[in-house]
């Protein structure tokens, strides 16, 4: 029964993965895999030796961590809130509206962000009402991380509610009924019925997210970044983009990707082990 699925992973994932060896070569499109020179850890060293490595590494970690902590719970919250809506058509419309930004590219979302935060944008207009001078948010280091988090939520939180809502809808109504009869308030019901039943889903999704801890979404950062916010916003992916496009440096890009994947994998492994204790692990 499992054969088609396993076949897929073998063909489309594992076989190409063997090509990751180019991370240890000086891969040249002219020489191919077999004839390209082997250089061991040269590309990794190049990454670590980059004078700005410290900066891009920590920026990546910090943004990844913020994203996990701050954006992960939002879809859950939204799903719970949506579940409390009693008017059906309102619930449906809001749900649909919320997941629309997912379909727009970051070029568009970032463009709107710049407009909103520009000199004459909404943000500064509101500041003006309170008597504050306009500020150019996208140029200011202190604002980059909040903007990154807020735009992440704006774009993806709605789409993320889909799974949680499906899970919530699947909860047997009789459980709520018995809770009501025991005199539980709506809040208590959420706390003692909904959330515990949602936990396996939450756990699974959390573990899945951790694996891509260092994958911050190149498109998003690239479009939100300005030279003035490099110090907090320049991450591993943007650095690789700058270096990689120049001479199509496949080896270097692969090496960096490997580096990030290893870190991601270690995280998943560690968290999965603790999750297994509650029978919630991924494997």
């Amino acid at each position, binding site marked *: *029964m*499992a054969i*088609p*699925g*396993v076949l*897929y*992973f073998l063909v*489309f*994932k*594992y*076989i*190409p*993965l063997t*090509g*990751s060896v*180019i991370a240890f070569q000086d891969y040249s499109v002219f020489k191919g*895999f077999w004839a390209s020179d082997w250089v061991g850890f040269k590309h990794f060293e190049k990454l670590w030796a980059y004078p700005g490595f410290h900066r891009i590494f920590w920026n990546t970690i910090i943004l990844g961590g913020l994203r996990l902590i701050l954006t992960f719970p939002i879809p859950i919250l939204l799903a719970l*809130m949506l579940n409390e*809506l009693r008017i059906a058509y309102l619930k*449906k419309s*809001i*749900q*649909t*509206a*919320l997941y*629309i930004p*997912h*379909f*727009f590219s970051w070029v*568009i979302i970032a463009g*709107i962000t710049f407009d909103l935060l520009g000199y004459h944008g909404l943000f500064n207009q509101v500041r003006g009402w309170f008597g504050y001078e306009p500020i150019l948010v996208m140029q200011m280091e202190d604002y980059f991380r909040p903007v990154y988090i807020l735009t992440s939520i*704006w774009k993806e939180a*709605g789409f993320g509610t*889909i*799974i949680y809502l*499906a*899970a919530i*809808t*699947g*909860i*047997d*109504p009789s459980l*709520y*009924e018995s809770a*009501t009869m025991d005199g539980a*308030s*709506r809040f208590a019901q959420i706390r003692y019925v909904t959330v515990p*039943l949602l936990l*396996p889903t939450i756990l*699974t*999704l959390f573990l899945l997210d951790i*694996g891509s801890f260092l994958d911050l979404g190149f498109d998003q950062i690239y479009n939100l970044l300005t030279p003035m916010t490099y110090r907090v916003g320049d991450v591993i992916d943007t650095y690789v983009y700058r270096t990689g496009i120049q001479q199509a440096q496949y080896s270097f*890009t692969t090496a960096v*990707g490997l580096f990030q*994947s290893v870190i*991601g*994998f270690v995280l*998943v492994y560690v968290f999965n082990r603790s999750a297994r204790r509650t029978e919630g692990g*991924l*494997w």
Partner: protein
Amino acid sequence: MVKARHRTFGEKLFGLVNASALCLFALAALLPLIVSVSTSLSSKLAVDTNQVFLWPVQFTFDSWKYIVFRPDLWRSFGLTLASTLIGTALALLVTALLAYPLSKKEFKLGGVIMAAVIVTMIFKAPIVPYFLTVREIGLFNNPLVLVLPHIVSAYCLAIMRTFFKQFPHELEEAAKMDGCGYFRILFRIILPSSTAVLATLGLLYGVVIWNQYQTPLLFLQDQSLFPLQMKIKQFIVDGNELPILAAKAVVNYNERTLRAATVIFAIVPVVLVYPYLQKYFVKGAMLGSVKG
């Protein structure tokens, strides 16, 4: 869902605040759509001089007229629709076939396979070997490349597996005692009760296939095989330092208005699907209880 019961004042207040907050969030979420719609309905001059934001300036249907009358766009639409429907159905099938054994403790290889799958989610193959592999199996310039590379996603697999794991064992026990094999159990008992999961994952797969861009970019050279997202890119021209005088003199649209219109063209079908799917969620499986 919940039987009518007297709500406290606190609860009513909460309900109001809740609804308002959600409405606000929804409005914020609609912003990109509003901006795109306005851009697509504005004149070339207005967009060139950057005057458009929330509402159309110098209203015109010209951009829409242009794209709606492009047969190649409709062809692409049809192709994308077909590949999405076929691909989603196939994906759900293959995923279920893999998720079910993986959710059973009896399946000894389950843990290993699952771990291997998660690995593929974290470790991504570099472009060149991926390109060569897929090309070797004959998918270059082949419309099947719109479907096959997406038939299983580790993410969806993990979710489906979690759902299967939670399925009440009693039902399966009963079926086994009646002499049902695993296939029958899966298709006759489990899947029919999993409409919520299937609808959800179907949506996820569908969106991925509908929106795909990177994969077809590598493997499709024939313009008539381009899915929607690749078509949309044809409307985008980057880095021009000077617009074409002729186009300005004669037509009332530019790259930005066309892009806005095509983006909406690509989004509308997906947006319409979700409310339709929602009814399947309600009929779904029940967590944490035994079906009567």
